[in-house]
């Protein structure tokens, strides 16, 4: 910033002939080049660790153990990925990564779909109906916003044991959808829907369900898509909860399994397979974010403000 402006000290508005869409006055060509340079440096910092993980996943264990690691991918891509996906890795009980990916997928989808489903329904009730206790229920749900699962781990774990939910998908999913974020977002959005729409629907003889199905859901499509991406990533990247609630190796999520594969105490960590697992664990959420970028960015920035 500072050096950009120092170089740009002389630039005045009058010097700038070119004005394009989104460009502002008073940004000289030099400072624009510097901006590109800074951004490229930023991209390198942000993307390099991910790239390097991929590079490591294509080398043999021997290459990895002799630093520095080459900057270009090696020739073990197929071998390493095949062994991890279908062969199983010793330290985590021989569970193949495909099982881990499936577990994580179930968890992420369960959290995303489950949270959206219960939240849409309760926001619908709170915004479009008047009934005794409405505000009490709203506050009961709202307060849950304040306490992330990290804060109440031990008692929640006890509930899981009592209900027999250890090592089950329900145990992985249910406690993480017990929060108010999505309900509040839908409530906010529903409140912006004009009353005339409901009036019109009622004049036409539509009941609450018709209104919900034919008017409310189509209007909420963008919000649901954005929230789906955010919740999917939230579910996929969970750590503390799956760590506690899964004991058996075949129920682990891929993030937890990755942690179990690494040991610095003894030398037999199979780093090439660890790196493959890391790439496999990063890839699905990255793809979701990249492909749904437009919705996700809009949803993230608009809903969280």
């Amino acid at each position: 910033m500072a050096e950009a402006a120092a170089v740009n000290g002389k630039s005045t508005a009058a010097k700038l002939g070119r004005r394009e869409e989104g460009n502002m006055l008073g940004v000289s060509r030099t400072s624009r080049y510097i901006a590109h340079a800074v951004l490229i440096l930023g991209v390198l910092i942000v993307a390099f660790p991910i790239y390097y993980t991929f590079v490591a996943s294509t080398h043999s264990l021997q290459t990895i153990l002799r630093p520095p690691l080459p900057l270009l991918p090696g020739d073990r891509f197929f071998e390493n990925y095949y062994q991890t996906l279908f062969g199983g890795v010793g330290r985590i009980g021989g569970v193949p990564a495909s099982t881990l990916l499936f577990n994580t997928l179930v968890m992420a989808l369960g959290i995303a779909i489950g949270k959206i489903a219960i939240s849409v329904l309760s926001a619908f009730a709170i915004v479009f109906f008047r009934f005794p206790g409405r505000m009490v229920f709203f506050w009961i749900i709202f307060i849950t916003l304040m306490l992330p699962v990290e804060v109440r781990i031990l008692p929640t774990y006890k509930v899981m044991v009592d209900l027999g939910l250890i090592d089950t998908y329900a145990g992985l999913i249910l406690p993480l959808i017990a929060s108010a974020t999505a309900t509040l977002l839908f409530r906010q959005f529903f409140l912006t829907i004009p009353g005339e729409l409901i009036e019109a629907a009622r004049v036409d003889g539509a009941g609450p369900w018709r209104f919900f199905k034919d008017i409310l859901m189509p209007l909420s499509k963008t919000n649901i898509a954005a929230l789906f991406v955010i919740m999917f990533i939230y579910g996929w990247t969970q750590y503390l909860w799956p760590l506690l609630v899964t004991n058996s190796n075949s129920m682990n999520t891929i993030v937890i399994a990755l942690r179990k594969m690494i040991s610095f105490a003894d030398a037999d960590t199979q780093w090439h397979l660890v790196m493959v697992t890391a790439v496999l664990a990063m890839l699905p959420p990255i793809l979701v974010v990249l492909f749904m970028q437009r919705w996700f960015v809009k949803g993230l920035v608009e809903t969280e403000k």
Partner: protein
Amino acid sequence: MSPRVVFPNKILPYALLLPQLVIVGIFFYWPASQALYQSVLREDPFGLRTTFVGMRNFQRVLADPNYLNAVENTAIFSIAVAFFAMSIALLLAVMADKIIKGKGIYRTMLIWPYAIAPAIAGMVWLFMFNPAMGTFAFMLRSAGYAWDPLLKGDQAMILVIAAAAWKQISYNFLFFVAGLQAIPKTLIEAAAIDGAGETKRFWTIIFPLLAPTTFFLLVINTTYAFFDTFGIIHAVTGGGPGKSTETLVYKVYHDGFVNLILGDSAAQSVILMVIVIVLTAIQFRYVEKKVHYG
């Protein structure tokens, strides 16, 4: 807000609320009340007798040097993560606001880490910087620097801060870009015509107008550093070496699940709850001011 048009149904709304209330009741209110209850009890080491001890768990926790150490670690960690993640993101966002071509490409390249689990971010950084075979550790040592985050507490802290801040840059970047776009261009052009250079325009116009975004991100980043980074600490350092990277959330976990001191762990949970409630209250005041209900 004008009085809303509503459906006259009397039973349906309860049925609609039921799924969420059941889940919230079983998985939120029940455990949260247990935490409150546990925090005033003390179990003997064999779990045979439980006695009511009032505030004594809290007193002991707050007087425990290990707890104070965790408070200090959490403060250093959170401030450093928020500072680096936000200032790097702001720099990149300001740069992205200046350029004309390639904005979309840069954004795409910069949002990747948002999708990565904090624990994986930590493990990737540890892979690059671990003393046994990390390439960067190798380079640091070739340069004559005694780098060993597995043995030296301050270096371990630097490593987890770097990983945690790195992961959060994308999120902050997206919000700063949105915040910058919301600043009226006419203001900046007026200042440019008056002869204000880019640095001056940034500090006198852009930065103050970004304050709501910055403040919002400050709360979000603090919450992130407090809670979401458990995975980084657990996966990379396990609170060590010594207790040099043990944060508050890590200590709740460690005392509750590893050391099995339930009363202390519950008391720590309650203290954390208070911290979160304060953070949420600050955040919600801000949100209420910003959002206009139709």
